[in-house]
């Protein structure tokens, strides 16, 4: 359990150290993944769509 916790902390830390541009690219990718799932639960608001931007 301890090892699992340590691994998760290390993963969070490595993501936090990513270059900013890479982080924004990840946010846009997360939007593409999460928004269709969110739409299954409720209608999306007009501004809730994946950003059509380059990071």
């Amino acid at each position, binding site marked *: 359990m301890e090892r699992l916790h340590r691994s998760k902390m290390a993963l*969070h*830390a490595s*993501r*936090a150290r*990513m270059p*900013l*541009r890479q*982080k*924004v690219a*990840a*946010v846009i990718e*997360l*939007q593409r*993944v*999460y*928004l269709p799932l969110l739409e299954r639960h409720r209608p999306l*608001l*007009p*501004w*809730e*769509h994946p*950003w*059509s*931007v*380059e*990071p």
Partner: protein
Amino acid sequence: MNSFIDALRALGELKGTGVVEDYAVAGAMALVFWTEPIPTYDLDVLVFLPEQERPITSLEGIYSWAAAHGYPVESEHVLVEGVPVQFLPSHNELADEAIETAQTLDYEGVPVRVVRPEYLIALYLEPAARTMKRRERAAALAEAPATNQQALRALLERFKVSS
């Protein structure tokens, strides 16, 4: 295709041309600057508006600026270079300080003002804003190396915000 850099540049222009006196990226995107990427669908921007004669705060200046640039308005968001931006006028002393003490970070050569982590946590923990999601975000941010623990404790105490 638009770029996130252009959206940040537009925020700088908003300040440079005096439409707002100052601004700072807040909310989940600010958190992304300090910690790891998390899902978020808009860019929250705290703003100081120039002094207004009317008693009710108006975002009219921002909407005129948006119209002049051809940025559509979607509900309470302005689509700035493809990014839905919610402009939030500073609502209290804590938000005032969050803007004043924001750190200017560099995003691919573009300066961007971002609320410091200690203030983000305090804003998340304000009673009016407190939700389970925000409490979780505050907790994650509190553990981030970017967060100054001493400054955080002092801030929460000064504004009587409980963690």
